[in-house]
């Protein structure tokens, strides 16, 4: 779970539309049960569990027990570390200004 291997697991986990969609759902509303996540996907409970396991293995999702339920949380730290690897803090401002511009232009289009 350290160093270069970390990044491999993160990129492999992200290279799947269903898993990205699970992260989108947690980003919109964090701390969800498997049942909640499963309800909105055209997929078996077992399928969702398998995808969550890959995301947890990459550290992108962390689960915590709450009473008898298991809640899933989006862990943004691995993505931050990938960001820090290629975007120095001196350039972060320019990158975010360009992304703001893109959002503004595309919203008015």
């Amino acid at each position: 779970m350290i160093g270069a291997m970390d990044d491999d697991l993160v990129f492999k986990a992200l290279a799947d539309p269903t898993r990205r969609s699970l992260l989108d759902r947690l980003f919109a509303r964090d701390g969800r049960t498997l049942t909640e996540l499963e309800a909105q996907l055209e997929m078996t409970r077992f399928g969702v569990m398998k995808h969550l396991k890959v995301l947890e293995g990459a550290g992108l999702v962390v689960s915590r027990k709450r009473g008898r339920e298991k809640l899933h949380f989006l862990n943004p730290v691995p993505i931050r570390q990938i960001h820090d690897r290629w975007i120095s803090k001196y350039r972060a401002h320019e990158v975010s200004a360009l992304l703001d511009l893109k959002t503004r232009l595309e919203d008015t289009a």
Partner: protein
Amino acid sequence: MTTMTDTTTQVYQLYIRATPEQVWDAITNPETIARYFHGAQLDPGPLEVGASRRTWSPDRSRLWGDNTILECDPPRRFVHTWRSLYDDELAAEDESRVTWEIEPAQSGTSKLTLIHDKLEGAPKTAASVRGWSFILSNLKTVLETGEPFPAEE
């Protein structure tokens, strides 16, 4: 749909190539904290339940936080209250809670989990503390390279 969704808890987790004792030191020692937490200056004080943790801006002109230790179990678990005082709107919100959990992991690493919860009465604080990713990423750099992280400006 179940009502178990928890939108007022944030969870952050990372592995750091350091012992649990080193991680504990990094989250409690004022000198180390200044190196990864925006140059924050923490007043020295006892590490015990009920003790206060006052944090100041780098030049000590502004109080950034005045939090109370709720649990202290070195080098495993550290819990304290949270209120951001550097901004009036945030300062007016309810107090929330920060829990640090440190567990030994494989190959000489430690797993650090930060849980920021009880954010029900602090929606603006909840949005602002998304910056924990940045802080924790800096903390890892400081511990693994031993180099001071340059202050963010």
